[in-house]
């Protein structure tokens, strides 16, 4: 008994965090697994909740709207990740060079990180405004015509508009991480390369890029997970439309679980989402370690 009492103070210090984690992370985590096999609803109803086995999963996999949301989310991720990361890396290299007013340029570039996402979305709603918004103004100026594009209302374009806004909103964050990675590469490597007659591209290819290996692993993982969780932009701007062309997995989970109150069904979606994100993280880590 006495030996247990010795641990009381340290356990007491640990307890608030443990209780909060159990209540708000571990219990919900297992509940979502459990609910996914039931027909649980958000609001209580006369018929009790029933265990329905795999029926939720069967229905989800048979729902074309679900597959549409998977397709859209993957499309978003595949388009956004390479553009966002190259823009982030390019601007990190630019802002790592010795320029006058470099602090000003850096300060400007991090502004999107400081702006709440809902404000960013609203500002871009004005830019996308059809037919007389800024983007259409630029489009008409470039093409010299008076045509306009319905940036959020055209099925083929809407997701690309979301991509553009998302890149603006998040590349500065990745840029900061690349900037820190660049500053950790020893300067003498570049000096040695200069003596050996390496040109700028060779320096990037043989020193900068390998030197950023760990940074790359981290940035690719967080960017991918962020892309798969796309929700806020879509929810405010299009609500998943037009014609489901911008529904994402989280938007699909939200509209089934919250708007239609089908907690059981939507929990099955969140289980699928969890498995996708977790296994992607594992796969990515393994791939990049073997490189």
């Amino acid at each position, binding site marked *: 008994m006495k030996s247990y009492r010795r641990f009381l103070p340290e356990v007491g210090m640990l307890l608030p965090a443990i209780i909060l984690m159990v209540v708000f992370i571990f219990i919900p985590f297992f509940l979502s697994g459990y609910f996914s096999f039931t027909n649980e609803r958000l609001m209580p109803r006369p018929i009790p909740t029933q265990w329905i086995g795999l029926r939720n999963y069967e229905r989800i996999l048979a729902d074309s709207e679900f597959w549409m949301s998977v397709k859209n989310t993957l499309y978003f991720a595949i388009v956004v990740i390479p553009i966002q990361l190259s823009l982030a890396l390019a601007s990190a290299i630019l802002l790592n060079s010795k320029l006058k007013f470099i602090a000003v340029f850096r300060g400007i570039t991090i502004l999107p990180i400081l702006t709440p996402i809902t404000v960013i979305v609203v500002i871009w709603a004005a830019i996308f405004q059809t037919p007389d918004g800024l983007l259409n103004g630029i489009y008409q100026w470039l093409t010299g015509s008076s045509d306009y594009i319905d940036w959020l209302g055209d099925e083929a374009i809407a997701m690309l508009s979301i991509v553009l806004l998302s890149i603006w909103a998040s590349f500065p964050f990745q840029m900061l*991480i690349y900037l820190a990675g660049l500053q950790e590469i020893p300067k003498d490597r570049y000096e040695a390369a200069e003596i050996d007659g390496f040109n700028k591209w060779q320096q990037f290819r043989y020193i900068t890029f390998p030197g950023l290996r760990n940074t790359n692993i981290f940035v690719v993982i967080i960017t991918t997970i962020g892309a798969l969780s796309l929700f806020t932009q879509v929810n405010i701007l299009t609500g998943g439309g037009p014609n489901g062309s911008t529904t994402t997995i989280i938007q699909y989970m939200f509209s089934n679980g919250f708007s239609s109150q089908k907690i059981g069904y939507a929990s099955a979606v969140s289980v699928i989402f969890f498995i996708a994100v977790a296994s992607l993280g594992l796969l990515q880590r393994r791939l990049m370690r073997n490189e």
Partner: protein
Amino acid sequence: MQYFKYFLAFILSMFILIPLMMAVTISLNPSNTDILANMGSWKSFIPQVFSFDNYRAVWSDPYHPFGLYLFNTFLITSISLTLSLVVNSCAAFSLAWGEGKYRKYILAAIISVLAIPGESLVLPQLLMVSKANLVDTYAVQILPGLANAFFIFLFYQFFSKIPKDLIDAARVDGFSLFQTYLKIALPLSKPVCVTVCILHFLGIWNSYLWPIMVTRGPEVRPLSVAMAAYFGSNQTQWGNVMAFAVCMAIPVIIFFLIIQRQFIASITGSSVKG
């Protein structure tokens, strides 16, 4: 080469600045017809008129009480940051300097939590808080985010690097574990505290999925969600919408630009070394 770099830096800055300048410009224009007429040209991001009519309208809108939203945000943020500092640092110190063998299992459990995306937990959480009648309260916006595996991990990394001699000396002086934490470790960990505050603040500032599910009316709604609702009900009133956006974003932007150095260090330090 150098000129070309300035040119690129200028292009990059414009890409970032134009949307933000556009919000300010539109917010200063009292005439909605004017705003719409200018929207497609450079006049949409370079102010032509300076009027605060839209700001007055935002602050006096009875359906969207800006002052109340601001108060809600301030309350939720300050309580969240204070409690999260205490809860996470306290747990981390116990994990770093406690004596039980059980600690490594808890640490492993906490690290495994990092792999769970928050989005996959919101539905059961929503059901739990509605059963507990917590919907539309401040508590429901504060409690779920308090204990944070990543913050515990950051504090743990820092605390485990404190020299053992220092901790032992405190014990010899008769300090309990909690006193050692409070009087020695916590004051030392100021940089981690700043990082946690900044990251947690950005988290609250950008959270959307959880608050829209658990706040039904304006009573306890925070600014970030209110922005979306305000936009939803005033879609064509661009002047007012942008005044709302500027009012909520500018103070925070200015504050972080003042502490820019620390801000950048927090974001990069926590991610690369973590």
